[in-house]
C-alpha cells in the first residue's frame, strides 16, 4: 500500500481537491485500524516463545526468529503423511473449485436473470431461502447424501459441496440484471448463439462480480476443513487447512505448539491475501475501461 501511495506521489496529491484529500486521510487512519490483524498475524508468526506469552501481549515482534517455522517443520516431518500431500490436495481442490464455481454459478445466473423460463422464480427463491438456513443441522443429512452418492474419500466429495455456492449465483444474477437487454439482443441479431452471447458479452461485462465470486470460492476452498473432517477417511485425502487445524486444536490450555500454530495461521492467511489483490486489481482494471452504458 505504501508503494502505491508513493507512486501516486505528490503530483497526484496536488491534483486532488480538498474533499478527496480529507477522505484519503481519514481512510488511511481507518485502514491502519482495519489492518491490525494482518500486522498481528505477520508479527506473531516470528515471535520466539518468550515473546508469544509476554504479558501484556505485544503487537510487534522484538526479536524476530524462525523458531516457530522450524517447530512447524519438525511437526510436519513427524506426521505419517508428508505435508506436501496435504498442500497438493488443497492447491488442487482450490484451483479446480475456483474455476468450477465461477463457471457453474455464472452459467446458472445468466438464464435466471435474462431468460424468463418457467420455474426461474422458484429456483431463485430456493437459492435465497437456503442461503438463510443455518448450516449447523444440515451436516448429518449432507453426510448421508455424500455416502449415498458413493463419493466418500474422493476429490469429488471435496469439490461438489463447494460448487453449490448460492451466494455466487445470487451475486452474479444481480450483476447480469444490470446488463441492458438491448446489448444482448444486438448480438443475437448478429447471429451469435446464446452461449457466445453469454461468454463474450455477459461475462466480460460482469467481470467485477466474476472476480468477487472467484475470491469467495478460493476462500471457501482453501480454508475448508469440513469436507476433510466429514467425508475423507484416509489422511492422504485431507486438506492442508485440516492438517493445520489439527495442530491448533485445543490451544486454549496448551502451551506447546503455539509457535507452530502462529506460523500455520500465517500460511493459511497469505494465499487469501494474494488471491484477493490479484483478482481485485482485475476488477478495477476492467472497470476503468468498460462500464455499463
Amino acid at each position, binding site marked *: 500500500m505504501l508503494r502505491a501511495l508513493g507512486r501516486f506521489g505528490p503530483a497526484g496529491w496536488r491534483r486532488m481537491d480538498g474533499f478527496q484529500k480529507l477522505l484519503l486521510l481519514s481512510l488511511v487512519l481507518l485502514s491502519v485500524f482495519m489492518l491490525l490483524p494482518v500486522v498481528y498475524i505477520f508479527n506473531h508468526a516470528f515471535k520466539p516463545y518468550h515473546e508469544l506469552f509476554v504479558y501484556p501481549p505485544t503487537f510487534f515482534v522484538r526479536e524476530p526468529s524462525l523458531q516457530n517455522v522450524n517447530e512447524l517443520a519438525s511437526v510436519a516431518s513427524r506426521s505419517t503423511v508428508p505435508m506436501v500431500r496435504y498442500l497438493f490436495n488443497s492447491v488442487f481442490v482450490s484451483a479446480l473449485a475456483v474455476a468450477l464455481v465461477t463457471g457453474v454459478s455464472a452459467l446458472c445466473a445468466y438464464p435466471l436473470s435474462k431468460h424468463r423460463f418457467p420455474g426461474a422464480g422458484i429456483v431463485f427463491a430456493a437459492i435465497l431461502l437456503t442461503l*438463510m438456513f443455518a448450516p449447523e443441522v444440515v451436516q448429518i443429512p449432507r453426510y448421508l447424501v455424500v455416502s449415498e452418492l458413493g463419493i466418500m474419500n474422493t476429490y469429488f466429495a471435496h469439490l461438489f459441496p463447494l460448487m453449490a455456492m448460492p451466494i455466487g449465483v445470487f451475486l452474479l444474477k444481480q450483476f447480469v440484471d444490470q446488463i441492458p437487454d438491448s446489448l444482448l439482443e444486438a448480438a443475437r441479431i448478429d447471429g451469435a448463439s446464446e452461449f457466445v452471447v453469454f461468454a463474450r458479452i455477459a461475462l466480460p461485462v460482469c467481470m467485477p462480480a466474476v472476480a468477487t465470486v472467484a475470491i469467495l470460492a478460493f476462500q471457501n476452498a482453501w480454508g475448508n476443513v469440513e469436507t476433510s473432517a466429514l467425508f475423507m477417511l484416509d489422511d492422504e485425502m485431507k486438506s492442508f487447512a485440516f492438517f493445520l487445524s489439527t495442530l491448533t486444536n485445543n490451544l486454549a490450555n496448551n502451551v506447546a505448539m503455539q509457535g507452530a500454530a502462529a506460523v500455520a495461521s500465517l500460511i493459511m492467511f497469505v494465499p487469501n491475501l494474494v488471491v484477493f489483490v490479484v483478482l481485485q486489481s482485475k476488477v478495477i482494471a476492467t472497470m476503468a475501461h468498460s462500464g455499463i452504458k
Partner: protein
Amino acid sequence: MSNKRAALLRQMWRHRLSYLFITPFMLCFIAFIVVPVAAAVALSFTYFNAIEKPRFIGWQNFQYLISQDLLFLKYALPNTFKFALIVGPGGYIAAFLLAWIISQLPGRLRKWFALAMYTPSLTIGIAMSIVWLPMLTGDRVGYLNSVLLRLGWIEVPQLWVTDPDYLMTSMIGVTLWSSMGVGFLAMLAGILNVNKDYYEAARIDGMKSRLQEIWYITIPSMKPQMLFGAVMAIVTTFKTGAIGVELSGANPTPAYSGHLIINHIDDFGFIRFEMGYAAAVSVFLLLLMYVSNKLSWGLFGSKGDE
C-alpha cells in the same frame, strides 16, 4: 387443463437451453443444499438424538420453543434482536459509505483500501480472538483499558468481554469492524459500474452536492447491488454466533449476555445432541431472516423482483 399443461411443456421446451445452462449448478445445489435443508426441516418435527432413529413428534419442538424454552425466550431471542438491529443496518450503511468513499479515490489506490477494509472479514475465523483479546483484556494492561485510563475517560479498568453488561457491546463493535465482506465488495463494484455520463449530465442540470448525487444517481443505478448487500447483511448478521464465545472465552457466555440464536442451535445440536430441536430453532431462524428480508426487498426491490 391438458391444454395448459401442453402450453407449459412447449414453453419449457423452447427454453431448453436455459435449463441446460442451470443444470450443473442445480445438480450440486439440490444434492448438497436443497435435500439436506429439506431433511433438516423434516427433522424439526421429530425427536432426533443423532444415534437413534428420528421419532415423529409433530409440533412439539416448536411449541416448546415459543412457550417454555426460557433460555431462548429470555436471552437468545432478545439478544439476537438487539444484535441484529444494530449490526445489520449499521454494517450495511458503513459498507456502502466506505465503498463510496473508496470509489471517490484515484483508481490506483482503490484496491489497497478495498483490501484493508476487507481483511477483517477474512481474518475473522483465524485471528479474531488473538487480535481482539489483547485489546479488550479486562485489566489495566488491555489496550483499550490502558488508553481510556490514560485519557481519564474511565476510572477503573472495565471487563469488556466478561462483564455481562459490556459483552454485547464488544460483540457488536467487533462484528461491525468485520462486516465489510462480500456485500461491501459488491457495492464497491456496483458504484464503480455506474455510468459516469449520468453524473456529468446531472451536473449540467444543476445538481451540486455529492449527497444529491448519491441519492439520485448512485443508489438508483446500483439497486441490484444494494439489494445483494442488504440480503447478505441480514444473513451474516443472523448467522453470527461464535463471536461472543470467542471473546468471552466461555460457553455459554457469562450470564447468557451474548447468547444468540445460533449459539442456541449449537448448544442443542453439538452439545446436547438434540438435533430435532436444533433443527426447529434453525427453521425459526430462517423465518426470522425471511421476514427481515421481505422488509428490505420492500425498500430496494423493483418491478421484476419478488
